């Protein structure tokens, strides 16, 4: 019986340690799904964090510059400038829904490491310039 208690105690300690490590690691490795407005509202929290920024590529903002590509992602209220060195996917163009994954550097610039265009079988172009819903935005993406 004494042995059993010891065993249970040892397992409990191990479980607590594992839980502590896991939850600590969890907090450091979160990926935030933000719209430009939410990202701007998060201020310093955005710097260095992994972010999936969803919105439309703002018409007129797309500027290729050698191997880098600059554009703005907008949700209708806020537009965030994004820069990337990635080769964009085939459908990438102005006005299309995108999710860019990356982080905000110290200078406040969004650096994208991965770009995904909205890729939905049931996609219908938003009517009258309406913004796609959050769920539609972060739904099935190409390259995921």
């Amino acid at each position, binding site marked *: 019986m004494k042995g059993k208690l010891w065993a249970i105690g040892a397992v409990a300690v191990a479980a607590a340690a594992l839980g502590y490590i896991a939850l600590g690691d969890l907090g450091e*490795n979160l990926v935030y799904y933000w719209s430009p407005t939410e990202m701007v509202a998060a201020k310093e929290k955005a710097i260095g964090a992994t972010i999936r920024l969803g919105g439309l590529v703002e018409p007129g903002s797309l500027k290729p510059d050698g191997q880098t590509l600059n554009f703005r992602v907008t949700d209708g209220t806020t537009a965030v400038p994004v820069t990337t060195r990635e080769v964009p996917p085939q459908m990438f163009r102005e006005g299309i829904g995108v999710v860019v994954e990356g982080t905000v550097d110290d200078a406040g610039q969004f650096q994208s490491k991965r770009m995904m265009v909205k890729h939905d079988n049931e996609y219908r172009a938003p009517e009258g310039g309406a913004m796609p819903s959050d769920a539609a935005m972060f739904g099935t993406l190409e390259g*995921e």
Partner: protein
Amino acid sequence: MTGEIGQAFVLGGLACAAAGSVAGFGAGAMRSATGWLWARRLAYGFAACMLLANLTMEYALLTHDFSVRYVAQVGSIDSPTYITIVSLWSSLEGSILFWGLILGAYVAAATAANRDENPSTMPWAIGVWLAVGAFFCFLLAGPANAFLPAPNPVPLDGPGPNPLLQNHVLMIIHPPMLYLGYVGMTIPFGIAAGALFAGRLEASQIVPLRRWLLVAWGFLTVGITLGGWWAYEVLGWGGYWAWDPVENASLLPWLTATAALHAAMLPHRRGALKGWTVTLVLASFLLTLLGTFMTRSGVFNSVHSFSQSDIGPTILAFLSVCLVFSVVLLALRVDKLEGEGAVTAVVSRESAFLLNNLLFVALTFTVLVGTTFPLLAEAVKGVKLSVGEPYFNRMAVPIGVAILFLMGVGPALPWGQASGERVRKQVLPPLGLGIAAMVVGFGVGLREPWPLLTLGCGGFAGYVTLREMIGPVRALVAGNPGTSALGAWAAAVPQALTQSNRRIGGYIVHLGIIAMIVSIAMSSAYGVDAEARLTKGECMAFEGYDICFEQARTVKESNRTLEVADFRATRDGESSLISPALASYPGMMAPIGSPDVKSTLGYDLYLSLMSINGDVAGVHMFRKPIVAWIWLGAGLAALGTLMSLVPSRKAQAAAVAAPVAAEAASK
């Protein structure tokens, strides 16, 4: 008309399952032979109804009967016939219907296989299986009804199944394999619950429990690997596993089922830890339901979210009921199972198994936390987030390496107390090979600690596994001294395979898993990638290859159009053509990438076409070591599983002897 017929079969299945479940529980509680007979009859009835309902749906699909809504959703006159056949499981309602077919087949097979055994526990088990069957029939009759009529007017053609699923042949095999694994967990769940109800778990129940668990485990292993292979061949990001919630959903029951398969060897050998074994089996089933909820409810943002629907709450409710049922049953009955043996020796195979179980449970816990955390965060705080890969890798890598090490330690130790002398003799030579593997790895330039350690543990575990595998053969050769050495070995191998097929099969599975873990470590640590935009005729250097963009061409197929880019990859005078493409489907806004992989046992060269505009192709290239060994390892694991499942001669002899003895005793 077809819709109504299908509907009738589903309702028939529901009636059989519900009545059979009641009969099973009644027969278990009252030990009624009539109830047991009727439970079996109704189980076969349920299976027949599910088969007929599925055949009806296939008929509707093949005749393009767009008056059935499901056919209108996934069917298309232009689809090739094989695509039409497999569109049965390409969308939500059809996949639940297919689920019912598999459950029916499992229940019928398990009922037939166990009809003469364990009269105290099997009626309970059949009651549990059919209760699960009744739930899925209820889904089919209500929230996920595949046979509803299409809205008026009846469409003349449909869009065809989701192009992502049409794009590769692996997507045709992957879902059935995964379903066979998921649904298969119902059988051991029922047997474990039956053991709890009856308050006994003896060898005669552990054998079918392990057997059915192994069947489900084998399919799950193949299903998960095929999913990874599909992601690798189709999605174009050069990887096969992203810790996506839906991938994790399939891994969770695999982890607990692996632990349960090992745990079940302890009561078999030692009479110990019956309650623990049963708990792991129950958990495996509950995790398959959690996985079903995750994949079928659309709560996750994932590439797998093609099957969104409103059946999420129904599945969640069923999961809750099963969870409460399992916990209450365990709490009330588990102490009836214990008492015969215990694990006492510290240095023994038993304790290696225990440690293995703790590691698997720790990994399950880690993955479960990382997978469900985003759901909780959204439900509680309304924030959308996901847990990044580093979290999973940081936890899974050390635990995975420790498990790999234990794969060498466990089989090297004997059951019961091991003497120090014996341990040294058994463990030191393989340990030497492990260290040698690390030295060689270091010599060829590997510097990262975890891949090196994986290599070492792989060498150690591989040595032990091979030694244990040829053990039975060597014993036979030693016992047969007269003939020539070659002749003795030639005679011993088939004899060992038939006599010790379970043991040898088990070690073949281990070899497969060792190959998989080592190749996963190497391919993820030492893969290289680059992106480029190339104009027609332009070449670039990549990892010793000269990669030239030769031409772009368009290929029209009946259901899609391909924009193909031909690249020539030359290295050391050898050149090969690699042709990634972008596939466009009618009704789809964006094209889908079709990467092309040149795979050898040493390296994969992987080209993914990002974009093509006239003569300019955007391409993402990868070179990864020993990826092919992951798929080969899974094949080996499947082969080993099959071998273990073939009844060995000893078991066959026992099976023949048992009824005869029982008959003699009853006279």
